[in-house]
């Protein structure tokens, strides 16, 4: 029996979608098991088709992206209502994604920069016809509706996606790994004596050794080990794009905690090494941080 599946995109980059397509020949094995009932990227179904389905008539609902507009919120709720198993597909869906970094600013500052002050804009105006209103801040989708499965990653690898689908199709539980990226990383780890942090473009990298040991801010220790250590394998420090290791509530706080313990330098020097801790410690999950939630509360209070 084929299972009915729907894939919906809220505000996103479509990379999660591409990651599914990147199964390539693997698609030919997966597709026959699935009856696609909604997938705007590939199939001509419309929102009204989704609306007309009975509740819980979709076996698997994958939601990519996060809510930046009221339409996104509507589609998210619709997907929840129609799906039996709802999957937070990618880090946008789980933790807000990179666009959560916009929560550092007020909506009018964002809109102003984009539509009124952009260098090449010749006739500034804020679009208002046939477009949904923006929501004041990006929230993790899991704060809006209940999800059955979290599938973090930016994007989750094709392998991650197929493993999750296989588990759902066979009725097995799908558990996220307890491991961190460091546990998956091939680099040789030694004692840490970090007396200075290097920026990712600086100096000569020893490809055999742990990047953090060499003084690069590699966030593998704080990040869920699900990608197979993609970045450190190619000498690029992990930016934490899959979100925190299991049960860590605040990715940045975990990183601050570790840096305070391992950096052999004066606190002021440590602080000066990271002029943008939010961008450095909360690459794709700022919306899920305590600080962003605080700002969210402060905003709702102002209104």
């Amino acid at each position, binding site marked *: 029996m084929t299972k009915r599946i729907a894939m919906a995109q809220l505000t996103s980059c479509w990379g999660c979608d591409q990651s599914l397509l990147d199964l390539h020949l693997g698609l030919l094995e997966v597709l026959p098991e699935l009856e696609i009932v909604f997938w705007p990227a590939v199939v001509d179904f419309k929102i009204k088709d989704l609306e007309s389905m009975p509740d819980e008539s979709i076996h698997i609902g994958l939601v990519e992206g996060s809510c930046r507009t009221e339409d996104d919120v509507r589609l998210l709720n619709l997907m929840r209502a129609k799906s039996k198993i709802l999957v937070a597909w990618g880090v946008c869906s789980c933790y807000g994604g990179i666009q959560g970094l916009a929560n*550092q600013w007020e909506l009018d500052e964002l809109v102003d920069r984009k539509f009124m002050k952009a260098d090449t804009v010749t006739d500034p105006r804020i679009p208002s016809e046939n477009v949904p209103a923006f929501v004041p801040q990006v929230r993790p989708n899991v704060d809006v509706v209940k999800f059955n499965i979290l599938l973090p990653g930016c994007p989750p690898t094709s392998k991650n996606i197929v493993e999750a689908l296989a588990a759902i199709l066979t009725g097995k539980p799908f558990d996220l790994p307890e491991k961190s990226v460091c546990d998956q990383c091939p680099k040789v780890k030694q004692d840490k004596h970090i007396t200075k942090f290097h920026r990712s473009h600086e100096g000569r990298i020893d490809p055999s050794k742990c990047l953090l040991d060499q003084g690069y801010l590699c966030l593998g220790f704080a990040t869920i080990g699900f990608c197979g250590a993609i970045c450190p394998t190619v000498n690029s420090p992990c930016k934490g794009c899959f979100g925190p290791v299991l049960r860590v*509530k605040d990715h*940045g706080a975990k990183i601050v905690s570790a840096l305070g313990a391992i950096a052999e330098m004066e606190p002021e020097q440590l602080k000066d090494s990271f*002029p943008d801790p939010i961008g450095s410690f909360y690459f794709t999950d700022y919306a899920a941080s305590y*600080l962003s939630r605080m700002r969210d509360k*402060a905003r709702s209070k102002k209104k």
Partner: protein
Amino acid sequence: MPTGVTNSLTAAGHKATSSQRQKARGEKDFEPRILAFCCNWCSYAGADLAGTSRRQMPPNVRIIRVNCTGRVDPSFILDALNQGADGVLISGCHPGDCHYTSGNLKMKSRFALLQKVLEEAGFEPERIHLQWASAAEGDVFTEGITSMVERIKALGPNPARKD
């Protein structure tokens, strides 16, 4: 989540509860709610001393005793602010005196980064404060609390505070 926090509440915190529940109606009669993480070996003893010697101390503080400031996870501090604390005070042993050698120094580094994160997120870094007070320094502790309260009164309520 790391443990190491004992949720006991005595000493300087004991008189605080009733006034704490009062709503901060306006900036004028704003009574800050401050959470203090005190190291068991020095500051907590100092706080105790301050309490038993009945020094005047603002009643706005709740104290959580920890084994060492090195065990105060940055997420506890952020969580406290998110739950509406107007300020968070961390009080530990003087450098060199930490029972676990360097817990307080780790805290100092974390604290520097945390202040920076708060600032970038649009909150006053002064909402969190780190001080050193030994077991014998009940007065230093009290003074720390008093000036913390002053500082937070000047800042006004935590914008994320619900009431």
